[in-house]
């Protein structure tokens, strides 16, 4: 698995390959599967702090949102959006209907925008197979699903 930088530029999502430097001042790291074209999503819940604020990766509000995401009906994709290897500043949730994304638990943590996008423009992430937690120093957006993949 890999991650990519993501930013909302003039109302459209733009992505860049993983790299140490942020390509734009407001870009965030997301799970690359969420922004890989070809998925069925047509609605997006884009949660993001307005400024440069961010939360620790294990902030209680973030952990609670992750648990609510896992407990509920999984949409097309969910990924946290990271500033760096330990700070979170938002999340991206993709669905095929407005209802899929309206109840996004991350909207209780970050300011949120709901956007409509063309089908096929974004990707898919299957429901995670690991626990609803992230780990310090991983630098990887949740779900970063190692359990789903062959390790050796």
């Amino acid at each position, binding site marked *: 698995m890999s991650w990519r930088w993501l930013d909302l530029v003039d109302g459209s999502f733009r992505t860049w390959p993983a790299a140490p430097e942020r390509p734009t001042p407001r870009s965030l790291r997301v799970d690359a599967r969420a922004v890989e074209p070809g998925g069925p999503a047509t609605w997006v819940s884009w949660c993001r702090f307005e400024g440069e604020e961010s939360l620790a990766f294990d902030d209680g509000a973030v952990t609670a949102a992750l648990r609510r995401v896992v407990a509920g009906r999984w949409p097309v994709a969910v990924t946290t959006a990271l500033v760096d290897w330990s700070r979170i500043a938002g999340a991206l949730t993709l669905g095929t209907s407005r209802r899929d994304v309206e109840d996004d638990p991350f909207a209780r943590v970050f300011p949120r925008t709901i956007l409509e996008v063309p089908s096929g423009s974004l990707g898919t992430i299957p429901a995670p197979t690991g*626990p609803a937690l992230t780990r310090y120093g991983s630098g990887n957006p949740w779900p970063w699903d190692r359990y789903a993949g062959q390790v050796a």
Partner: protein
Amino acid sequence: MSLTLLDWRRRVAALYADVRRTSEAEPIAALARFRAGRDELFTSHPDRPGGPRPIYWDHRPDLRFEVDVDTDVQPARLAMERSDGATVPFTRFGRVHLPIGDLDVYWLDSYGGGVFLPFRDATCGTSSYGGGRYLLDSVKGADLGGEGGRLVLDFNYAYHPSCFYSDAWACPLAPPANRLPGPIEAGERMA
């Protein structure tokens, strides 16, 4: 960790031992005893996980299967991250073919080992936990039996993982191969 946890494990193992002995001959009574025993553990045992008391769908005789395990599968070693950064390794050692869909069967690749079978279905996120349920987890006593290389898979005994009950737990959840397309309205459910 403690003698009370040992007691919890013994009592869970005894519930499943009773199921293995009696569920084929007297399925409704066996299920009722299992649920009563579980209710008692969840309401009074010092090591109960907390949270809501388990509730269940009615008995579904059509969702009990005894099947061969198809071991002609590519072994895949999987790792699930734990909260402390370590990983819990599993190996897929077989696949079962059921009228309701196919499921991979895993072996817990750490001390003691054990069979592990988690699944998701179309009830997840609405009438059951979004993270799915477990059917077998033999290291914790959840073993429904089966002889001669066969496994009993009775979805009336499907149960929510501990992370459904308490934030203190971090559970492995069903991988993509173990997602059943239809609703499995049997076993433990949400209100």
